[in-house]
């Protein structure tokens, strides 16, 4: 009987813990515009100028949040930009232009294969977070007779890296959304 009761209590405790986790996931603070507003101003879709009112004083942080997908402070999508840097970070970086959206790595030889080296160029194509928003081109050279010679690279290599960039961008986006 005591054991049965102990199991029951443990079960209830686990359920409560699960419910707590679930509660946190299913709780949010409604935005101001989720309540009925009888004001004639509020019934118009959108605002002239794109922002909710004309800023008189202070610095508008919310609009930076609102335009995160379009990349705040840089010329291309912030998530794709950061994801590209993260994904190509195993290679030395030669050039990175956050406004044009170009990341160029230096040559890199994997420790296991000293006779070949790789170089990658990534292009972030716009301000939107979308699956065709990044393009990665990989170059490969092999050491032959004491000189580096260009060798063809499988087309899938670039697209695999693009997939990794997109996966990382999604991860960053979801982390941000949950904050």
């Amino acid at each position, binding site marked *: 009987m005591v054991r049965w009761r102990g199991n029951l209590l443990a079960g209830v405790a686990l359920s409560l813990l699960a419910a707590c986790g679930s*509660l946190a996931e*299913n*709780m*949010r*603070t*409604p935005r*101001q515009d989720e*309540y*009925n*507003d*009888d*004001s*004639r*101003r*509020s*019934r*118009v*879709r*959108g*605002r*002239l*100028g*794109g*922002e*909710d*009112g*004309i*800023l*008189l*004083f*202070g*610095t*508008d*942080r*919310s609009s*930076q*949040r609102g335009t*995160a997908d379009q*990349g*705040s*402070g*840089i010329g291309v999508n*912030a*998530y794709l*930009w*950061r994801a590209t*840097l993260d994904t190509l970070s195993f290679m*030395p*970086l*030669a*050039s*990175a232009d*956050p406004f044009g959206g170009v990341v160029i790595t*230096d040559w890199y030889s994997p420790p296991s294969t000293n006779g070949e080296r790789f170089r990658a160029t990534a292009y972030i194509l716009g301000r939107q977070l979308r699956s065709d928003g990044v393009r990665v081109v990989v170059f490969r050279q092999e050491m032959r007779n004491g000189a580096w010679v260009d060798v063809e690279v499988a087309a899938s290599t670039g697209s695999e890296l693009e997939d990794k960039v997109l996966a990382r961008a999604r991860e*960053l986006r979801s982390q*941000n959304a949950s*904050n």
Partner: protein
Amino acid sequence: MRKLLLGTTAVAAAALFGASHASAQTAPTVRIGGFFEFTGGYIDDDADRNAVTIPAVGTNAARTVSRDKVDFRSDAEIHILVSGKAANGLTYGAAIELQVDNVTNSGGAGNGGVVDTDEMWMYISSPTLGQLQLGDQDNAADQLKVSTPGIQNLDQSGGWDEFTPPSGDGSRYLVTGINDGVDSTKIIYLSPQFFGFDFGISYAANQSEGENFLTPTGGIQRDGLGLTNEISGAVRYRGTFGGVGVATAFSAMRADAQESNGVLFGGVPVGLEDVTQYQAGLNLSAYGLTVGGYYSWGKFSGATRGVLREGLDNSTNWGAGATYRMGAFEVGAFFAEASRDNGTAVVAGAQLKDREQQLISVGAVYTLAPGLEMFANYTNIDNKNIANNATNPTNYASQRNRTIDVFIVGTRLSF
């Protein structure tokens, strides 16, 4: 290279920090917003016929003429909006709304040139504990209610009524959702949303608003000569089932009637009932289409939250409608009906029937640019059994029944 790496990392980090909802303190911002609206109306109203008396001059006898059928109106508000975030994560702000009601005012200007406050209130919001609103703001029942879906200026009590004079009982419109507390100064709590549910509750000590300590008649607002102890609340659910958005709410309010010795009915004083109103509403939306409606009932008179005298039945309002959005176009239509008990008095050999108002409305809105819309709609209003007074309807006004057709077209910009 190291500098380049550091530099790019800093750019990326700045982008990410900018993108995150960091709980760091944010200096408040002050914004100015508002709207301007121009509307033209064509009005065909029974009550307009021979409604204007032209006084006699010399040998020219007095005569009556009908009102014009065409009118223009303009309306505007300026809003001052403050918002900020404290270091502990609390967000706070205020909204001060200045309106031009465009009506003759007690100051005598008569040109609508006097500016006064509409809503004005402040809020403090916690990410986990909900939001506290303080000031002249709509009550919790209204903020969380679910009513008939509508579009710009296609409303039970908006748009058409601006062009019509009141009926004999003092009302232009009767059909509305649960009353909003008419901006009386109050305290409102709105909860966070749990599993799609949220709730709210509000309290107003009396129906006065603003800093009004002395009333225009010389008393003070604690005299109890208006409604007191108004409490309202609502529970709302919003969710999605198989791609269909569901919003439903139950709202309720009550208030003590003003201190009085009642009203004379049949020569005998009759007491006033405390005000109650309840509303249940449901909206379903999918693929740009929203359909829904509400039913509201309680002990209230007139359009919003007037008192009923004892012995009158509950008042009821209900409405059902639909809206459909296709890109920049939005169309909508609704039917709504209000019923008020006229009591059991016998006038001219017949018992008074219930006062009723029915609305049929259809319209469209086109968004020219974000914040700039054009609208056009048509409303048919059918009034029946209009009595002379909402509290003490002992006889009919001269205009028992009244039919109105209103067509409006206009534009509104918001900034």
